[in-house]
């Protein structure tokens, strides 16, 4: 688990941007989606999710909007902004380069 946390360091914000970029989501939904899409690999510590989302919002990468549900309850949905989309493209490209470089070095010798 410790090793997973080390690998996740610095990746949580691009992961959040990527998920919100696919569709507007609320906090609890983000945690569930992240867990489902990564087949249980990524388990976000719930208490750290909201500070991370608010950091993205302060940076103008996402925007939060309250929506009233038919049940009368309210949920805060996060939408990616234009600035967020641009940053996401940059991060995607950086991540691809990183993965390619890592694979070149880390792959077994006989492959």
């Amino acid at each position, binding site marked *: 688990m410790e090793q997973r946390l080390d690998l996740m360091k610095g990746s949580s914000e691009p992961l959040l941007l990527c998920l919100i970029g696919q569709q507007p989501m*609320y*906090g*609890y939904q983000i945690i569930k989606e992240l867990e489902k899409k990564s087949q249980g690999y990524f388990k976000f*510590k*719930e*208490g*750290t999710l*909201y*500070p991370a989302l*608010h*950091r993205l919002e*302060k940076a103008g990468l996402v925007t*939060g909007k*309250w929506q009233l549900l038919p049940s009368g*309850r*309210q*949920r*805060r949905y996060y939408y990616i902004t234009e600035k967020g989309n641009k940053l996401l493209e940059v991060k995607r490209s950086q991540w691809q380069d990183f993965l390619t470089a890592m694979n070149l070095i880390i792959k077994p010798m006989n492959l």
Partner: protein
Amino acid sequence: MIAVLNQYIDDIRDNLRLNLANENDVIGELQSHIEDEFQEMRDAGLSEEEAANTCIKFLGSAKLVARQIYEVHSQGTWRQALLASMPHVLFALLFTLNWWQGVGWLIITLGCILGMAFYGWVHGRPEWLFPWRGYCFLPVLVAGGLLLYLPRGWSWVAIVIYLPLVCGLVWSVTVKSVKRDWLYSGLMMLPVPIIIGWFLVAGTEGEFPRISLDYVRHSAPGIGLSFLALAATTVAFIRLRKRWMRLVLLFLSGELTLVMVALYSNGRLSLPTFLLLTLLMLGLLLSPALVDRRIRRGKQPSIS
């Protein structure tokens, strides 16, 4: 929601120390998260108590969550920082440009202070309001000083009436500031020991409360510099994110400014007076924390 979850939300709210709009957003969002998770666990067959405890375990310590959210929102913008430092800059200009001798400039400065304090008060009490609010005590302080010039008998009567009124006013404003964040009370009160220090230094030797205007004229650049130091402290305070850094900044900067007053005084500020002013500053910085604690202890936990 059951009591343990309400208590958890209250603990977060107590430690957030954000403005009301942000606080409502954060609390609403966390409440919605807890309701979703709680319901999901109940559907999975957990008892109410088990579901509530699991929700709390997944979210983590209320203090930690509140602190992390505080650190995201606590940093003010440069605009807010500059606006917050303006009353100190106004006073620095008043002395460095020798405007303090002109009644017109004094009235304009006082008008600006009262106007800005009122504007901030009716516009959601933003972070930049607190230093302006601190200077609103200045007319009260000056009125207290003027009472010392009344004939001896009248002076005592006036002071006996004045002191409880001032204490009541200071208490009421402090409690209102503390409810927002006790550190802002410290920021608001920071100039008080410095101003008292300059008053004591400018007192005609052995004849206090008589002020030597010649001495004030002579010390005007030093007085201006001390207010500029307060302005720089305020900018740094608004831009810092962590609470402990803000507190250390207030103490160190206040102490350094007092040292500056002592150095400028050429021995007119004795060591015991300097130490008393340091104690006063510590008291003004830390007593709001005690008031805050008392307010929290007095709160009944909300159970529904």
